[in-house]
Each structure stands twice: as structure tokens, then as C-alpha cells.
């Protein structure tokens, strides 16, 4: 079974729609989504999921951007939400992913990273590929059913070739 997948879109405009449709499909297949967002704040994503009739009570969020952009008072962590101080802190991001996996132990998990390319704003490419390598290895070691999915809109060739070597599959979506 493929555990680490990168889904690439040739049309970047489709990514926002695909985020919602992937979560819907994952829930339909019995997966519990853990959304790691460096892009849109968790509160916005949650609102968009609700508008698309998704059950957000079973969607977990690791939000690496809200606290950084709007300050610590604007966020309120709970069982389903972990907020990181900055997107550049990959150690805490890895710890948060492990924590969320622990909280959802025994469930079928889909980890959605939105998005690796956004990480380029906050980190050098070499650190990002190291992070993907570490997370991919961690996912493979997990006995339980867990899939890591990164949705990208055309990564730069250098980073793309590095990440390609760590993932089990790259799904190219045209149009």
C-alpha cells in the first residue's frame, strides 16, 4: 500500500477546491484527516469545509500560520487544533504531527500538508526536503493505516526532484 503521496496540479487554481474534495473523499473512505496548514488559517479552512457539508468534528488541524500572522491571542487550541508559533519551526511541526497521530491512535489517518511550496516562504529548500524525508520515514514506521498527502501546484524542479525521491507516488492531475 502506498503511504506517502504527492498530488501535483498543473493548474494551481484547482488546489483550493481540491483541498476540500480530498477531505470529503477521505472522510467517505473512513479516514480521519489531519490537516497541516501553512497556507490558509485553520479557522478559514474549517469554515470552507462546513460550507461544503463536511463533518469538521472529525477533522484535526495543525495550524502553523495563524499565530505567526495574527498573534497568540487570536487562536485557541483544543483537542482538534494545535497552533504553532512559526511555520519555520520544523521540530515543533514534527512533534505536533506525532501528537496528533497519538491522539488519533487506532484510526485510519490521512495527513494532508497544505502546502510544501508555501513552506518555501519560511524555509530554505534543503530543510523542506529534509522535513519531508523525516515525516515520510515516520509515516512508514507507523503500523496503523496512515497516508501522507501533499497537494502541490507545480513545485520548482529542484525541490520537486528531491521530494520525488522520498514519496511512494506522485499523482499528476492535468487540467
Amino acid at each position, binding site marked *: 500500500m502506498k503511504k506517502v503521496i504527492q498530488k501535483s496540479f498543473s493548474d*494551481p*487554481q484547482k*488546489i*483550493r477546491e481540491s483541498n476540500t474534495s480530498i477531505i470529503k473523499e477521505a472522510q467517505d473512505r473512513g479516514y480521519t484527516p489531519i490537516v497541516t496548514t501553512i*497556507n*490558509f*488559517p485553520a*479557522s*478559514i479552512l474549517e*469554515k*470552507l469545509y462546513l*460550507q461544503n457539508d463536511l463533518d469538521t468534528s472529525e477533522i484535526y488541524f495543525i495550524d502553523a*500560520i*495563524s499565530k*505567526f*500572522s*495574527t498573534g497568540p491571542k*487570536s487562536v485557541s487550541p483544543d483537542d482538534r487544533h494545535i497552533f504553532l508559533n512559526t511555520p519555520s519551526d520544523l521540530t515543533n511541526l514534527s512533534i505536533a504531527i506525532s501528537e496528533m497521530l497519538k491522539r488519533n491512535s487506532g484510526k485510519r489517518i490521512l495527513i494532508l500538508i497544505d*502546502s510544501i*511550496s*508555501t513552506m*518555501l*516562504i*519560511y524555509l*530554505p*529548500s534543503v530543510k523542506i526536503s529534509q522535513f519531508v524525508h523525516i515525516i515520510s520515514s515516520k509515516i512508514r514506521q507507523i503500523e496503523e493505516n496512515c497516508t501522507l498527502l501533499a497537494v502541490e*501546484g507545480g*513545485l*520548482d524542479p*529542484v*525541490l520537486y526532484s528531491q521530494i520525488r525521491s522520498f514519496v511512494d507516488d506522485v499523482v499528476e492531475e492535468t487540467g
Partner: protein
Amino acid sequence: MRNKISSANLRFWTENQSESPDVITDMIINSISDPLFILSTQGVILLCNTACEEFLKMSVSEIKGHHCYELVHKLNDFTEGCPFVRSMKSKKREAYKANIDGKWSLVTIDPLINGEEDVVGAIHFIKDIDNIVRLDAAKTNLVGLVENTVDAVASVLLDDTIKYWNLGAEDIFGYTEEEIIGKNARILIAKEGMPHYDEIKKRIKAGEKIPRFESKMIAKSGEKIDVSISVQPMYDERGVVIGNSFIANNLTPQRKAEQELLHYVTEGTMRLEKPIEIIERNLSDIKILLSSGKLDSHDLELLLDVQISNAGQIYDNLKELKKEIADKQKDLPDEHARFLNE
């Protein structure tokens, strides 16, 4: 050297000449182009040749009767370590190199010893070696320059034997002089460069001028080194090509700098192009979501805050990258360094 006067021999030779012995002696010593003095055991000039007139700017008659130190060194006594004084004691040739009136001379004193082994005087000879000393100094400087230059300088015979190896070559290739002299120069040539090496040898032998070229050479560590090479033919005293000398300039640091520059450009583009595309995409998404009524003003404010953070971070990233380049590249022109440190 000991000068034993054989009175019998001199008498035999002079008796067979039409001139008197004094005239003959004058003829002999005047035929010598360098200054020559005959001294008493006290250092008094008894006789001198015409070259002394030119040397001391005095006539022979004015020179005679003076001590050599008075006229040559303008002193009242013998100089410390004077070869004449030493020679009187050692009864052997004594010599030293002296700078007289800004010119280098080799001063030799040969004691004159009679049949009873007594010193009866001395021949004081001053040879102009100024050109030799200056040439020698220039040669020493040149050798020092070649020896210590940061470029690799080496010479190779036609049979590929390495004959000369300077300190720059030691630094660049890692072989010491002792390790490499006598070895085959082919150990320095990369396999792919061997046909070119043979071609260069052929052209050098044919007397062809070789323009500077770039190549890869092999260091002792096995590392391939990018070098820029100039090769010159080496001739023997007959003008026959016996090998070549080469100067290799290490291009590896330059290549590394170029690679670093490429890395900076790639990283800079990657951290600028994609993030700007993301901000553009996000703003388009926000516009679509806003116009479709899916976002309220609070959501909009939150999303705009994220985009402002993104833009601020891109700016900080570029500043950091500029600083990194400025810190690593120490030889940047001032105006570039100022821009990168701003």
C-alpha cells in the same frame, strides 16, 4: 694557492728576451685587465698595473708607496678581516667579496713565498664581479619568485620525467618536491586529458606556441583539480627542445565560487518566484471566496494578515540571502558589498 718564485726560471725566460726583466714584468702585469698590486709584507704597494690607474683614478707613480688600505678603503689601517693580513699569517690565498664604491669586487691576496718558505710579499688582485653578483641576485630573486608563487610551476622532460616542482605545485597537487621529482608527469593527468597531453607534447616538440588552456589535473588525494595551464618549451644549450615547463593556475576556488553563485541564484529564485506565485494564488482565492460570499470581513482581515506575513517573510529571506552572500564572498567590489549589506 702558493706562488713560488723560481728565480732560475724567470732568469732563463727574461734573459732570452730583448727587453729588461722590469719591462717584461710591467708588460705582463699590464696585460691583466683587472687591478693588480704587488705588496710588501707591510702592505705597501711596490708595483701595480695600469688597470689600477682606472680603478683608483690615480697614476701608477702616485699609487706606489702607499698602503693598499689608504687607497682602496680610504682608511688608516687594515680593515677587520683583511685578506692581506690573513694571508700573511696563513701563507695561503685569502679572498673576500667587497663592495667598493658601490660595485662588487672579488679581492684575492696570494702570498709570495721564497725558497726558504718565507713570505716576501703578496699579489693583491681585485676582480670586478659586479655584473656576476647582480645577475646572481636577480637569478636568486627570480628563483625565489618562481619557487614561492601560488601557481604551480614545474618542468617536465620529453620522457615525462618531472625535473622541477615549486611550492605552489606542492600546495595545489599535494606532492612534495621529494615525492614528485623523477616521477612520470602522467600521474597528474586525468584519463580523459591524456590524448590532449600527448598532442601538447607533440606540438611543443615541433616548436609550436601553445595558447593557455583549461584542463583537469589529478592531485595526490585523487581529487580532480580544474586548472588553467600555460606551457612553454624548455631548451638545452644547443637550442634543442628537451621538455617543457608549465604554469598551472588553480581554478577550483573560482569554480566553487561559481557553483556557490549558482546556488544563490537558484535559491533566490526559488524563494522568490514560488512564494510570489503563492501570494498571487491566495489573493485570487480570497477574491473568489469573498465574491461568492463564503468569507466575512473578519475572515478577510485574517487572510490578508497571512499574506502580509508572507510578503514580509519573503523580504526578510532576500535580506538574509544577501547577507549570506556578502559574508561568504570576501572579495566583492565595494558597491556590491554595500548593496548586499544594506
